[in-house]
Structures are given as C-alpha cells and as structure tokens.
C-alpha cells in the first residue's frame, strides 16, 4: 500500500512523526517533490481565490500525489498543544480538499487534537491504522517508533539546523544550503510559519540568500518549547494559535536578549492569525527600537525582483548599523 504525504503545511514540523508511523506499519510512504510552478498552479486553479497561499500549495501537492498513491494522508490538524489551535483552515482542510472538485484517492484524516488530552494524537492515528486493518498493538508500536523519530528531529532542530536542512539530509542538492560554520557568523532571526520559510520555491530561496550573504539563520524551531512557553506567558492573554506563539515567543525573546542582528518576519498574504500576531510583533519591535525589522508578505504573485530589492536594502541597513 502506498500512502502519500504532501510536502506542504505542517509537513515541515511533523513529517518524521507521520512518515515513520506509516512506514513502521509497512506502508510505502511517498512525499511530493519540493514545490514547483506546476504544483503551485494546480493548487491555485482549484482553490477559492480567498484561500491563503499555503493552502493552495497544499492542494497542489495533494493533486500531484493523487494518481500515484492508494491513500492520501491529510490529517485534520486541530491542535498541537493544550489550549491552542493552529488555524481554522487546517481544521477544515480535509473537507475543503475533498470538495475541491478533483479526483482524489481516499483521504486518511485523523483528527489530531491535543486539546482532547496528551495522548489524543496517538489515539487518532491508532484509530486510522485500525481502519486499515492493523491491530492496536501494531499501531501502538508504530506510534512509539514515530515519537522517537520525532524526538530525534526536535533534538536536531535544537542544534541549530532548520527543518529544511534536516528533511533534505542525505540529498546531493541541499535546497537551503547548510550553515558553514555555526557560531562565528552574524545571526539573523527568521520568523514565520514553517511552510513558508522552508519551502524554497515559495520563499523565493530566502534562506539560501541569507546564507549566501554570510548570515547564520536562526528560526523559532531552534528554541526550546519551554523557552517559547515562558515568553508566551508574558503576553497579556494567552495566544491561542500555536504557530503565532512560536513567532511571537521567539521574536520577544530576541528583542529582549539581543544576539541577532535583525528580524525578518515572513507572512502569507491574507494569513488570519499573522495579521494580528505580526502587528503585535512589529509594535513590540518598534517600541524596543533596537533591532531592524522587515516584514515580507508572500503570495502567488510575489516577484523575485521586488523581494530581492527589499531584502538587500534591509541587509544593507543591518550591516550599516553594525559598522557604525
């Protein structure tokens, strides 16, 4: 049995968990290739105009995989940690995709909702595996293996690697280009949702470009979840979007502690949570007045030229500040 996992949305956070789970059960896991113009166009043509870029990209990856696999893994991602949500669109994603009017293999869509308890993800994956005929024991062992793999992944992130570095490990062509010498270079904080930052096509090679200019890139994924939680606790009200907590938590941490030369916040056009999270972060940064701050908005029409110009102006400013 072949199961397809689209290389989009929270693939960049949970691929090790999901792929190990299915592989352990003996399924052949197929991921779509990195985003391309064709994949994006497929998604854009099937989604409603108002949907955000990441959702359109996800559609494209799902359509790409559809003819090659018996099942598509499209989890209903409600919540990854207690008390939070991810985004309404991810909660409706399997239904949106199913009714997009394209031919698709059956979707496997466990409801992953950490609000229902710490074992809720495991239970949901187990239920889905049971539907495919696996025993509870097999599913349990697969869950353990998957959790162990995910823990290894998190540990690597903690060492300062980005999801892109790790997920493309062992490949000749490393899309993001690895950091050469950790620790010796000037660092930049790159904030944003993983599916924008680590999708080389969508981010127009942002990570690559920053590294080529000699910067070490820090992302929120590299901070421990405890630290993020501590920072998030300083907010006037607990933020209920987990990706927003990550952005705001990491941003506030570096605004207070320094250690980076500037902050770049990447958002998708029309992203609901980021329209507020980004605003809060930008106001914080402006009040602190210490670090250069750049907001980059991406959509399916983003031109490379415009982005590069803004990025270069920003980096010039960072360098000029450091020189003076």
């Amino acid at each position: 049995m072949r199961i397809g996992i689209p290389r989009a949305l929270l693939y960049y956070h949970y691929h090790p968990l999901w792929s190990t789970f299915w592989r352990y059960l003996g399924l052949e896991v197929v991921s779509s290739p990195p985003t391309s113009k064709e994949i994006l166009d497929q998604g854009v043509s099937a989604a409603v105009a108002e949907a955000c870029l990441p959702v359109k990209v996800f559609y494209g990856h799902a359509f790409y995989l559809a003819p090659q696999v018996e099942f598509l893994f499209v989890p209903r991602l409600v919540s990854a940690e207690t008390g939070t949500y991810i985004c309404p669109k991810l909660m409706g994603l399997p239904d949106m995709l199913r009714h997009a009017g394209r031919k698709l293999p059956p979707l496997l869509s466990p409801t992953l909702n950490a609000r229902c308890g710490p074992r809720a993800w495991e239970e949901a994956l187990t239920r889905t595996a049971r539907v495919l005929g696996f025993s509870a024991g097999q599913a349990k062992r697969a869950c353990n293996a998957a959790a162990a793999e995910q823990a290894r992944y998190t540990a690597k992130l903690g060492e300062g690697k980005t999801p892109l570095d790790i997920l493309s490990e062992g490949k000749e062509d490393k899309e993001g280009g690895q950091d050469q010498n950790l620790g010796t270079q000037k660092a930049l904080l790159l904030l944003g949702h993983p599916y924008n930052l680590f999708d080389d096509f969508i981010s127009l090679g942002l990570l690559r470009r920053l590294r080529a200019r000699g910067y070490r890139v820090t992302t929120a994924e590299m901070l421990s979840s405890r630290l993020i939680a501590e920072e998030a606790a300083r907010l006037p009200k607990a933020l209920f979007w987990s990706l927003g907590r990550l952005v705001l938590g990491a941003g506030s941490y570096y605004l207070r502690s320094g250690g980076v030369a500037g902050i770049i916040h990447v958002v998708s056009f029309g992203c609901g949570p980021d329209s507020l999270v980004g605003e809060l972060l930008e106001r914080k940064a402006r009040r602190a007045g210490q670090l250069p701050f750049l907001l980059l908005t991406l959509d399916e029409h983003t031109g490379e030229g415009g982005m590069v110009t803004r990025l270069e102006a920003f980096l010039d400013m960072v360098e000029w500040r450091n020189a003076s």
Partner: protein
Amino acid sequence: MKITFPHMGHLHVPLRSFFSRLGVETVVPPPISQETMAFGTRYAPEFACLPLKVNVGNFLQAARLGADTVIMAGGIGPCRFGYYAQVEQEILRDLGVDLKMVVLEPPQGHWRELWHNLRAITGRASLKEIWRAGRLAWRKLTALDELERELHRVRAREVTPGDASRAWRQIVDWLDQAETLSETEEAAHLGRAHLAAIPLREDDDVLRVGIVGEIYTLLEPAVNLEVERVLGEMGVEVERSIYLSDWVKTNLVLHSLHLRNDREEYRLAAPYLGHFVGGHGLESISFTIRYARSGFDGVIQLAPLTCMPEIVAESILPKVSRDMGIPVITFMLDEHASEVGMRTRLEAFCDLLRERRRQKKRSQRAKELLP
C-alpha cells in the same frame, strides 16, 4: 466612568439600556460612517479582518465624545475575534488614547474573573438590580429581533419602497427610549402595529433568500452595505442564520454552562464539514442545507475579507450548492466594498433565481398537462 462598546447591528440598544439602568454613564459611538472606516483602516493592521478596523474607529470616535472605558468580549479562538481586544489595546496605547479596556472572556471555569470584570463596570449595583437591568435589556433585544423578522417579510412586499425601512428606524428609536419592561412591551406592540399598517402588494411572488456567514457582517448593516434593505426593496424576502438574541443564548449562556443546542448544526453539516472551524463556518454550511430543504430560492454568504472560518465554508459551499440544487453567492467585504458593485451582483443573482423559479413552474405545468 463613561462606558463605550463596539457597534454591531442594534446591539447598542440593549447595552445602553443595561448600563444606564445601573446608573453607569454610556457613550454610544456615532453611527458607523466614512470617518469610522477611515480611522479603522489608518490605525488597524492592514490585513486584519474588517470588524477589528470598525471597532477601532468606533472606539476613537467614542473617545472623542468623552468615553474612558471600553467593554469588549473575548474568545478562545481559533477565530481572530478572541484576540481583538488585546490588539486594539496595543493600537490605542501607541496612539496615546486613554481608554481602559474591560474584556469579558468566556468563563471556561473561571467565573471569578468574569464576575470581577463585571463588578468593575456595574459598581455598587445589587444583584437584584443587575438582574432587572439584564431582564429589560434582554426583552429589548428579543423584541428587536422579532420585529426585524417581521420587517424582512414586510419590506419584500411593500407597495412604496422605503416604507418599511422608515418604520424600522422609528421602531428602534421607540425601543431605545423605553425605560421599563411595560414601556418596552408597549413599544414592541406599537412597532408591530406600525409594520402591519404598511400597504402590501397583493401578488405573493417574492423570492426567498437565506443569508449565512460571519456574525458581524451579518448583523451590521453599515458593513454589509445594507444588503437586507437592498434585497428587500428588490422584492426579496430574506432570512438570516443568526439573530443577536439567538447568539447570546447559544454562545454566552448555554456554552458557558457547558450545554449545547447546536448538535443539529453538526449533524446537518457532517457530510460536508466534519469539524467545527471557529466562528460560524460550520453554521454557514448547515444553514445552507436548511434553506435548501425549506425551499428557499438561493443563499447569500457574507464574510469579512480573509475571514478564516468562512473561507473554509466558501471552499465547500459550491459542492453543497450542486448537491442540494440551490444557488449560492459569496460576498467578501472590506473597506473597499462598494454598494454599486454589490447591487449589480445581487441583481444578476436575483435574475437567475427568478428564471429558475419560472423554469420550475413551467416544467411543473408541463407535467400536469401530460397524461
């Protein structure tokens, strides 16, 4: 203390009644205008959804009239509304506007905080006084909702366009002025009579259209470009999926007590959307199904541009529309929405609905004639 609050349809009537009964001075923000929108778009985040922008405009205009405290509702996500108050507070802070914000969060087991916040507003009023003020406000709200339903029926059939809308403004004013329960009953009675006195057309060939979508754009005429009035005056009877009193009952009262009355919505939507998605996304699906089953001619979805739950619904509605055989049109509203643009699309939509009706009648007659 001078209290203000955001506008949302006729919400200001019960709220003002509640606070003034308790002796708390209130400043109702001026009706939403060009200036409100201008303030909102200038100071609120560019990609925030429209209600937040209008809120900011309301607050700044109310502050100019002397308001010093804002009452806002909170939320627990995933819809952005749950974090509005915090963002609004930051905006006001950076603008140097001195408005204290009291946020009433859904209790989630922490009743004490809600009580504490309520006490901060109600001051020394006794529980009995609060109960009485609440009862009066609630009666005004239910009376307004009841009369508004009647308004929709009358407006689609009035002989002289504009009669019903004029009567409605008068009715809101009467209910706003009423100071006791009996005066409220009197005002409601008068209102019913006022609407009943409007001459109606004899033919009863009005289109029936259901309106679904996000609560704020549904309830606030200034933001939805008075879609209900425009449709009514085109001879279309509208029914809305949300009335303020129903929403208060479901979300503020029942959910706080961990009771539900929305199982039916989940059941109806299930073949299309298997999970709640925040806001009223699920209801937009379930009510479209309801309207189709009750023989409505079409459905209109309203939402602020970039509204997440409604984008989920919008993605699924074409399938519901095909399966149930009911035309659906979506309006995403923002500060650039124009009444002319909306009217053109509505006219085309209604032409389509009338044509469908004619065709249905024709094929029915053909069936009757054939042996």
